[in-house]
């Protein structure tokens, strides 16, 4: 399983890549693997504000429709429009082309509550058994 070292992770399998005040958010390799083939992605709009833990997107796979939650609070400043046309990117490139939103991080301290790659790997291993 692919778990990049430079990202932070949530218990709901979202990742965030922090770049100064902003963060790029998507779902992990573990998430796309459990969802199986993604058939639809619904994303928010630029300017939307969400608190940590709120739903900002919905990913629909052949199995289910799953809510995607905010790892930290923030304002959406960019949305990956490509993803709303090419849903399969979530399966092919979850950490790259399948980024979902870019946000302005509101409370940087909330990042401390997230898992690093090592902790997330252990968390994934635990659930595979």
């Amino acid at each position, binding site marked *: 399983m692919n778990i990049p070292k430079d990202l932070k992770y949530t218990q709901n399998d979202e990742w965030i890549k922090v770049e100064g005040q902003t963060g790029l958010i998507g779902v992990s390799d573990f998430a796309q693997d459990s969802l199986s083939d993604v058939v*639809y992605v*619904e994303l*928010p709009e630029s300017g939307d504000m969400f608190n940590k833990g709120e739903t900002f997107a*919905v990913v*629909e*796979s052949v199995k*289910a*429709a799953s*809510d995607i939650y905010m790892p930290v609070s923030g304002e959406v400043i960019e949305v990956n429009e490509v993803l709303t046309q090419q849903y399969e990117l979530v399966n092919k490139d979850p950490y790259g082309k399948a980024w979902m939103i870019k946000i302005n991080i509101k409370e940087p301290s909330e990042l401390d509550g997230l898992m690093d790659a090592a902790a997330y790997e252990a968390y994934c291993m635990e659930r595979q058994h």
Partner: protein
Amino acid sequence: MTQFIPHTDSDREAMLDIIGLKRVDELFQDVPAAYRFPSLNLPPAVSEMEIVNEVQALASLNENTHELICFLGAGAYNHYIPAVVDSILRRGEFFTAYTPYQPEVSQGTLQAIFEYQSLIAALTGMEVCNASHYDGATAVAEAVNMAYAVFRGKRNKLVLSPALHPQYRQTVQTYIQNHPISLVTNDEGGLKEHNLLTDSEALIPLVDDQTMLVIVQYPDFFGRVYDYSMLAEAVHAAGALLAVAINPLALGLLKPPGDFGADIVMGEGQPLGIPLSFGGPYLGLFATRKEYVRKMSGRLVGETVDVHNQRGYVLTLTAREQHIRREKATSNICTNQGLIALASAVYMSALGKHGLRQVAELNYHKAHYAAEYLKKIPGYALWSDAPFFNEFVLICPEPAEELNRYLLDKGVIGGYVLGQDFPTLNHCVLIAVTEMNSRAEIDYLVELLAGWVDK
């Protein structure tokens, strides 16, 4: 069809044997003896012949459209239903089946719904149509749910045309009472007559950047037909959606709402081969554009191919629905009355494109014939000069309720008394004329109304 195979005594014995019981009664041991056969407060049993007589005597107390001449419409209409509709419906494969919990097992049921969806999509000029709702009123309310979901609660103003069916309006109000949706309409302080008389463009100033949905009716509740193109443009310019409640039969003649920019089309499917039956079961039509399909409520049947490349039908996009999306789904109702949807599909197929147009033309011409003669009677007038389909409002010299009592005495069910919903229209009656009304019946109505003035 599967043969009827009764259980014989030896079948029962074999089954009891397997579960280790002697008699069927033993299955009910856990129910306290006192509750097993509670005494019911019923009159002594009568023979089949006696009960049939009794029920028929009760049934014959009802007034009905076979014995009376009917000019009542207002959402449910007296139309001819070809015999083929009932003979298909009464086939056991359709008639007895509840929606199967593993729907793909019932390919026939799914195909029938698929055909229904395709016919309604073609009739309305829309891209997708769901497997139907309970009736026109609930379908209209589902449009509100859908618009709210499309904008994810960011827009919450709902604009209702004052000429929307009052019962649809009430159902919408019931649906939204616990939602943060605010109703906007140009009828503050009661539905004033001058507001009712204004055309659709009067709604344009009510639309702003908080408006999620505008609902109009086509033909409207008063029977009038408006071109909603300008309204559609204005609604879209404000970023909102336009929903159009239809009479599907009128679309045999009129431009489909999909052609003038409707985003959602819903309506009462009863005119398509469904009997009046005291108001139900009816059929809620619901169609929309493909881009909104994931926010549409209700079930959706799709056509696909199996591993052998053979055509097959499936329930599609089920992840939208409440059993998967739970409280996040657009609606908590996915049920429909599939048999009624099937009736309308058989009706549309039996008539075909040209037949539907013919029925619509008959309705149009007969209603216009009636209006032409009724308005000439001294003391009567048409309320509106807008174009209409098969229904129009007649202003009477006295309260319309009194007129209807007089007509019923003469064997005629009069039109809809508008005063019950619109107090200012107390002297107005909404008269529907369908292909079922002969010229002689219309002439009789004219004669009666003229006589009522002289009385």
